[in-house]
């Protein structure tokens, strides 16, 4: 490579790592080395100037918006089918009645409403470490008996007037939210459906466990994990009998 070719390359591709280019830089005594250093100084200035901090949690916000729009699209499609089939009018009426009944009960409403405030948790995928889990439960005065596997999020929250341990589990591709109301009891277990969420609430320890997800498929394993975490592993309990 001669000086002319080197300078042409330097003008357009100053970051080139091509061997002939670098060899000329190292061997030329006609000012090409100095020109290369001048060019690198400009490149450093450009690099420094182009550093722009991305907005915090950009990826999480994009993923959340994506999940929401996907869900909306799927719901719209089903709504189209529902309109076309007169049978589904009756089903819609039933759903309406069910929703009204659910509205009268504040606990599911509060649980579902709470999710919106921490929606970013639904996009998380990395399992939490032991110390984070212990801190989360300790924040609500609950001693952790066993590590819940697959928990990707924990927070000690207040839902309505109640103190809650808020967890998200990743069951396959689906997030399942567990809200442990530590000082609010319900009389019996029941399932509910609210604002597109499948839910289940049940007496749990001294409080109530509420599970929320796209469907109920992950509920059993999350309930078991929560049971082990709060009441101690089932095997241990059996062994003590």
């Amino acid at each position: 490579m001669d000086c002319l070719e080197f300078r042409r390359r330097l003008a357009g591709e100053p970051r080139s790592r091509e061997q002939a280019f670098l060899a000329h830089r190292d061997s030329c005594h006609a000012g090409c080395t100095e020109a290369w250093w001048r060019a690198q100084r400009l490149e450093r200035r450009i690099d420094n100037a182009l550093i722009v901090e991305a907005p915090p949690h950009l990826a999480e916000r994009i993923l959340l918006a994506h999940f929401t729009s996907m869900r909306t699209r799927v719901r719209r499609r089903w709504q189209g089918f529902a309109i076309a089939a007169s049978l589904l009018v009756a089903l819609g009426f039933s759903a309406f009645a069910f929703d009204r009944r659910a509205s009268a009960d504040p606990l599911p409403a509060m649980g579902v409403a709470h999710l919106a405030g921490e929606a970013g948790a639904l996009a998380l995928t990395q399992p939490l470490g032991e110390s984070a889990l212990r801190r989360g439960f300790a924040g609500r005065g609950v001693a952790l008996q066993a590590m819940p596997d697959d928990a990707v999020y924990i927070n000690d929250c207040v839902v309505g007037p109640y103190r809650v341990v808020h967890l998200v589990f990743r069951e396959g591709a689906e997030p399942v939210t567990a809200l442990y109301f530590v000082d609010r009891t319900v009389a019996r277990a029941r399932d509910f459906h609210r604002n597109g969420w499948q839910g289940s609430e049940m007496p749990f320890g001294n409080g109530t466990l509420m599970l929320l997800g796209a469907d109920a498929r992950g509920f059993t394993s999350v309930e078991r994990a929560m049971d082990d975490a709060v009441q101690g592993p089932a095997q241990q309990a059996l062994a003590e009998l």
Partner: protein
Amino acid sequence: MPVLSKVGSKQRQFDALVRAHANDLYRFAYWLCGEDARAQDLVQETLLRAWRALDSLRDGAAAKPWLLTILRREHARGFERKRLDLTELDDRVVDDSASASPERAGSDAQVRAAILKLDPKYREPLLMQVLGGFSCEEIARELNCKPGAVMTQLFRARQKLRAQLDGNHAVDDREPAHGLP
């Protein structure tokens, strides 16, 4: 809102793609359009299109150039729809004075202003090279022109930057006589 399960593996792939590239895409978008809000919209629109076309991405290593290409096209579409919002350049310069020394902050601000003043035909290949890591040949393919023309645009971009930073704004657009920096 929860996601329907049938999208499982595609969703995981998309999730990884977003986490790996959202910030780089934002940076590229910001310097293309010069506005934070528009840059965020561009990233979101880009990733939405990427989701629809995810099955066509065979090689994970090619994800970044693929996404940048989508983003560029999305930007161009928006540019055509809305030609041309003129924004005061000074308002668009990022304020990083809190995180850099005064000298460095001043220098960066100068370079940023100079970059934003570049004509898009110079700024775009420069960003593709510096932020996207594209070679001249790749840029040429993306911009549908010859590698030699890209080399000239890249040379011009840097020449204009240098001129603005040195206080000499009278760089002309003629082909360089010898191409020497």
